């Protein structure tokens, strides 16, 4: 999902970057109020884990294409969507500067999709599912697993939708318009998202067993 340099027009890349700014400011303000000496190591290790996990690609069907975890829903569920924004912004910056994975001019666009949309939509889906399932007589662990799966799956699918919109609006350089980029990116990542949802569910379930204080059900 990482857009390299040259895939977005200057206008789209600039607008995406400008949209990110208030989310960065809000996220830094929020984590400043919630982070403490005990949260910092967890945030650091989780961010490193997501970076490493993003290097593992899995096949998504015919044509030889692959997909990978984005991880922002996982960080959002365990810490907060604001932490997810900051974690993914760090990862995307290192990937662009050190590995040429994702561009510098497209950094704002990649942050908008994978950090902002992935974090907030994934977290909202997780919370909404917990709320809906709260009315059902279902095992608490099952609620967490289902909510985490949907948080991861919906988070990456909407992140891909955001990338599809940006690419479609950049058709003068990318070549395809919205009618192609949106369904292609969204459908392919809805398939990849099954893996994202499964990994998110397993990780959240495991952490809810060893550190239940990190996974709030309400």
């Amino acid at each position, binding site marked *: 999902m990482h857009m390299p340099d040259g*895939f977005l027009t200057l206008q789209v890349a600039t607008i995406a970057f400008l949209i990110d700014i208030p989310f960065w400011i809000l996220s830094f303000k929020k984590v400043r109020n919630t*982070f403490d000496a005990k949260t910092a190591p967890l*945030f650091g*290790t989780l961010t490193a884990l997501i970076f490493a996990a993003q290097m*593992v690609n899995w096949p998504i069907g015919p044509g030889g294409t692959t997909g990978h975890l984005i991880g922002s829903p996982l960080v959002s569920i365990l810490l907060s969507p604001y932490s997810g924004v900051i974690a993914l912004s760090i990862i995307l910056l290192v990937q662009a500067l050190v590995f*040429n994975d994702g561009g510098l001019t497209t950094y704002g666009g990649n942050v908008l999709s994978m950090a902002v949309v992935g974090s907030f939509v994934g977290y909202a889906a997780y919370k909404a599912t917990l709320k809906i399932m709260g009315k059902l007589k279902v095992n608490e662990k099952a609620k967490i697993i289902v909510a985490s799966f949907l948080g991861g799956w919906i988070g990456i699918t909407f992140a891909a939708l955001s990338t599809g919109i940006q690419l479609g609006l950049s058709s003068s350089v990318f070549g395809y318009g919205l009618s192609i980029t949106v369904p292609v990116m969204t459908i392919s*990542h809805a398939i990849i998202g099954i893996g994202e949802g499964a990994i998110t569910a397993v990780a959240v379930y495991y952490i809810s067993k060893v550190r239940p204080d990190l996974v709030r059900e309400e």
Partner: protein
Amino acid sequence: MKLDYVMLLKILVVAAILAFLGSWVASYAYEPLDKAAEILNLKEVEIFKAPLSGYTLGWKTINLLGYELDVSGVIAGVIGTLIVLILAYALASVLSRKKS
């Protein structure tokens, strides 16, 4: 929130394994966006040369027990994981300083 060193260590071990695995299979990374770019013959614009471009140091692979292993890719993956760990921890520490 309690500080659980065992859990942090477990997360780091998983990250190291993923960095190893990810570097090993990185050559198979071919995403839908890459496929669209290939169909359109769209080349990415390289505005600068990153030090570990393509998640490799550029060394040749070695044959390990019948498997071609890109050692430099594994090292690049581990370096990246460490850079992210240090940056994220440092930033989180600075942000949490006033509460400590």
